[in-house]
């Protein structure tokens, strides 16, 4: 049987790449200069039967059209916003992602960001490192995370994991979702503005789709308010970023912990000078343990496909 040809659009993970190299014929798109990439794809289209995507690059309509032998898109992420799912369904192309293995890390980071913002942890660290403790006396008072009402947008795997952790801090939990979830004691809001108005920390934990694009807009930010904190561990485009920056600048929003941005790796520089924000470079699943587990899942899905066995974590 012909070795599976796998298109890798960007570097993702050394372990993943070495495992792909061991088994398959890997086509590394980034090794061609940008202006030659269409040619590269055309030249190798006959061999490419799989694409490995992630949060930055996947399989959009043009890519799918250019790969007539494409059979499977295996995402090195749980998010599928870079994959044209409708087109995949239309073409009978399978799609897999990496749920569950990254849930803990992403939820841990959400809580870590909330605590860091409310308790000014990074600022305090900077304060000590600068020597200011010696000259300026103690760092100022902040506000506790424990007991604050947490509002979660999207009560899926990650949303539930965030809730479970926040509960251990005595935080009441409420959520907004497309529909109310059975079997939870959490307070459901059918309207996101109402959720934002009634919580202290708002966590974005839903998938990015056309419906959830800019779901956190000016109205939601204003409802969250001058003492409210936004934590985004979803996707940058969930939040209207210019509105977010304006709300922070004008004091209409209390603070933000952000793992994702609309135009990664570019982050609005105005945020760099703000002490009520914590900015991290899309590290939600960024641990050795989890990335290895994600890579194993990608390989596992590709292997299952090659062997005609049931896929491990199919979405399409």
């Amino acid at each position, binding site marked *: 049987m012909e070795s599976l040809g796998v298109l890798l659009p960007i570097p993702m993970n050394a372990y993943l790449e070495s495992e792909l190299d061991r088994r398959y014929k890997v086509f590394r798109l980034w090794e061609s200069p940008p202006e030659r990439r269409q040619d590269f794809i055309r030249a190798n289209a006959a061999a490419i039967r799989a694409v490995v995507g992630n949060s930055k690059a996947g399989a959009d309509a043009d890519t799918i059209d250019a790969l007539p032998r494409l059979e499977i898109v295996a995402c090195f992420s749980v998010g599928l916003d870079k994959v044209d799912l409708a087109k995949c369904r239309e073409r009978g192309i399978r799609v897999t992602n990496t749920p569950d293995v990254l849930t*803990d890390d992403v939820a841990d980071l959400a809580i870590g960001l909330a605590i860091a913002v409310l308790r000014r*942890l990074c600022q305090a660290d900077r304060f000590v490192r600068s020597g200011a*403790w010696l000259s300026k006396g103690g760092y100022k008072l902040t506000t506790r995370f424990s007991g604050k009402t947490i509002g979660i947008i999207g009560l899926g795997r990650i949303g539930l994991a965030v809730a479970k952790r926040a509960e251990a801090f005595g935080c009441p939990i409420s959520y907004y979702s497309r529909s109310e979830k059975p079997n939870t004691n959490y307070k459901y809001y059918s309207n996101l503005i109402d959720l934002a108005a009634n919580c202290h920390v708002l966590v974005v934990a839903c998938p990015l789709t056309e419906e959830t694009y800019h779901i956190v807009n000016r109205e939601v930010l204003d409802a969250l308010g001058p003492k409210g904190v936004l934590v985004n561990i979803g996707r940058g485009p969930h939040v209207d970023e210019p509105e977010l920056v304006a709300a922070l600048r004008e004091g209409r929003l209390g603070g933000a912990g952000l793992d994702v941005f609309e135009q990664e790796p570019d982050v609005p520089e105005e945020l760099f000078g703000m002490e009520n924000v914590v900015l991290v470079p899309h590290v939600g699943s960024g*641990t050795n343990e989890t990335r290895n587990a994600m890579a194993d899942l990608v390989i596992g899905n590709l292997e299952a496909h090659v062997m005609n066995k049931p896929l491990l974590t199919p979405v399409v």
Partner: protein
Amino acid sequence: MASSSVPQGRPETERPQLLLLRPPLAALDEVLSGRFELLKSWESPLPLDRFLATHAANVRALLVIDLFTVDGPLLDALPALRFVCTTSAGVNHIDLGECARRGIAVANAGTVFSQEVAEYAVGLLIDVLRRVSACDRYVRRGLWPRRGDYPLGSKLGGKRVGIVGLGSIGSEVAKRLRAFGCPISYFSRSRKPQFPYAYFPSAADLAAHSDVLVVACALTHETHHIIDRDVMAALGKDGIIINVGRGALVDEAELVKRVMRGEIGGAGLDVFEHEPAVPEELFGVDNGSAFTSCGHANIRVVFRPLSADGG
């Protein structure tokens, strides 16, 4: 207005005197002024001993703010003192023996700050493992577009957490970290059968079976440098130490050596042996290395005003 327990012999209209040796926060000042006549040593041009001799001869109550040391010599200067209250949970800055000998009652902040301290310990641990502060610096310096993705951190879930001191703070830490999937064990002066955690009979034993040590016990003669070289060696080169107790619970010089030699996985420190001095060698430790140091006046919430939550 005096409370119902007005000391005998005083006119009811006279508020009891309360001695302060360090300035309180405004909100605390306001609350106290309503009930006490405040004697504020720092507002006097006199050196402290002269101030006390002149003004504090009859003062019966002292409020300790900012961990001011209360020892024999100070107590000698306050012959009428009956009561010392500290705004902290810790009492290591107060000579309890001397107070007992003189029949002086001592009160602390009890468990009022336990949740704050516990959540800060969790915040520090996530910061160390997931490099939150280091990442924040990286992004603010504009390095993400220039240098690409930040190196990977380490997963919190599944890390064995050993709590040194399972008191109010320690138990609140345990409750939180369980929810992150961390198995919890502890070393404490006595077993706590009401908790479902594994007990180890010494800090070194605990360290040998832990990936993370959270230090949350009181500082006493017995616990000075309880986290010593042996404990650090037992914890191992990938181990993490989180200290939200007192600086002197940890042999700081030894810790610094290990950090510099890469013989410890990382440390999240809210307290230091010689505050506000922090070993400068630690400041250079950045990116790639999981070290976070945080000043902590926000832990020393002086007092919880009756109204706002300080936010």
